[in-house]
């Protein structure tokens, strides 16, 4: 049996770059993930999420840069059985049943889980006798999830695991995922569903144009992307003065009410309270993640299309 990774070993991606022809899929990507973290790689199509995951799995070799998975190069970590992956492309294997496919995958790992347990956990037990080529999209996704889990890997890499799955299927999937993450596994998943990243990750890494454009807890990402709004009643202040306060990007007035759009709502609020003790009815509303996402990845659309076309 292979040695389990030490407690200090995390995943480190350092100065990664990867080009497909003239298109820079990954420009210079740095990322460190601690053991046990659940991290979402969030970004629009073509941002470089799949390329990043493929490099962490050892499927794609970076042009430059280093990846370390629990202290080993990705391919070695995969060989040691430390990594489980769920790729976007399905893996129906002709002339095999679901249970057999999962058992076959288990046989490759030094210390796999019980096949029946994994089938139950992923909900694939309901169709364990079905041919793998005769599955619905949601069933195939469960089978791929089971195949990723059955080796009992320490790191799970999931490339858009819920793409094309209905709402109920997604909810079931993330419920199972939470159970897995609670066992102390490191989970990295790529998604372009903002709600998923917000709801299921400890940390969101926003990727655009092949670079990390934001990295932190979901609330921090939202704050960083600014779109918090302060509303209050304040009759005796002109908008120019308000606009000059720290952290304020735009100020507006409707009668006695002011509306401040803030890049740093915390600073703005402190300054506001200091300068205008008479202020009342203060209301701070957080911009949603969708707005943050749009703002941070705004200039990406052209580059994204290029990358998608180059990969096709």
């Amino acid at each position: 049996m292979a040695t389990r990774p030490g407690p200090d070993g995390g995943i480190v991606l350092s100065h990664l770059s990867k080009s497909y022809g003239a298109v820079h899929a990954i420009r210079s990507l740095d990322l460190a993930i601690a053991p046990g973290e659940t991290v979402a790689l969030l970004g629009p199509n073509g941002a470089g999420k799949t390329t990043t995951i493929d490099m962490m799995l050892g499927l794609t070799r970076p042009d430059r840069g280093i990846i370390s998975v629990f202290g080993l190069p990705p391919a070695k970590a995969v060989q040691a059985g430390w990594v489980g992956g769920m790729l976007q492309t399905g893996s129906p294997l002709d002339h095999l049943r679901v249970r057999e496919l999962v058992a076959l995958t288990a046989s490759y790992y030094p210390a796999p889980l019980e096949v029946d347990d994994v089938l139950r956990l992923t909900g694939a037990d309901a169709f364990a006798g079905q041919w793998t080529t005769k599955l619905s999209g949601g069933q195939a996704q469960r089978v791929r999830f089971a195949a990723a889990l059955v080796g009992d890997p320490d790191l799970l890499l999931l490339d858009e695991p819920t793409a094309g799955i209905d709402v109920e299927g997604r909810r079931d999937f993330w419920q199972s995922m939470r159970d897995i993450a609670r066992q102390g596994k490191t989970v990295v998943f790529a998604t372009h569903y903002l709600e998923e990243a917000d709801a299921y990750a400890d940390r969101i890494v926003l990727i655009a144009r092949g670079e990390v454009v934001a990295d932190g807890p979901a609330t921090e990402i939202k704050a960083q992307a600014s779109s918090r709004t302060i509303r209050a009643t304040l009759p005796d202040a002109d908008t120019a003065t308000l606009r000059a306060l720290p952290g304020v990007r735009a100020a507006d007035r409707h009668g006695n009410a002011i509306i401040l759009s803030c890049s740093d709502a915390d600073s703005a609020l402190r300054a506001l309270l200091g300068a205008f003790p008479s202020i009342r009815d203060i209301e701070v509303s957080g911009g949603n993640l969708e707005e943050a996402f749009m703002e941070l990845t705004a200039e990406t659309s052209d580059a994204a299309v290029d990358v998608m076309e180059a990969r096709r």
Partner: protein
Amino acid sequence: MSRSTHFRYEVLRVLRNRVFYAVTLVLPIVLFFGVASGQRHATFNGTSFPLYFMTAMAVYGSMFAAVGPGARIARDISGGWTRQLRITPLRAPTDLAAKVASAYLLALPTLVLLFLAGALLGVRLAASQWLEMTGLILVGLVPFVVIGFVVGYLMPIDTLTPALGGIVGLFSLFGGVYGFELAKSGPMFDVMKALPSYWLVQAGRSVAVGGGGWPGQAWLVIAIWSVVLVPIAGLAYRRNAARA
């Protein structure tokens, strides 16, 4: 980690494929009885026609078994399974060995069945001759296993079946598998003798008539085809791995 599980499932996938039985067992046995039963007492190139045609049909079916891994490779690539395998601890050489071993295991029923059919139509050989003939055929199949790998890695799945069928068909035609030889002398005969399929078909006659097995030329032809094809298969494998 169990390598035998991978091998077992590799074989199981083939045994569940009806087309496999059709081309490796049904087709050769039907052709054998269809053609040879009317010519039980005919002779061909100094041997009995049933012995010649029994060997030819055993070779025909086992060539399909030999190129079989190629079809599975193409299927695995197109379904994404090859990529999935690459993110498990399974090593590529283990997969390769399982595919080669399965090709040989699955060629054996064809040989046994055709030899029984031949015996029914009066083919009589000593036990050592049956074994020697089996051994020669297994050696002569090496280039075909490798051809399967090359085609499987390079061809897209939709053109693969006609491609493999065409390749086996051409080797059969020029090797004398179909019950007649295109030439008995001249440049065409030289071309035939440069093909592994020709020597495969000669395996029966070589053990029955000469007694000494294949002539040196047969071993040389099989060796050259194998030595040339193996690096090509290696390149095809690497090309595919780089693309994944």
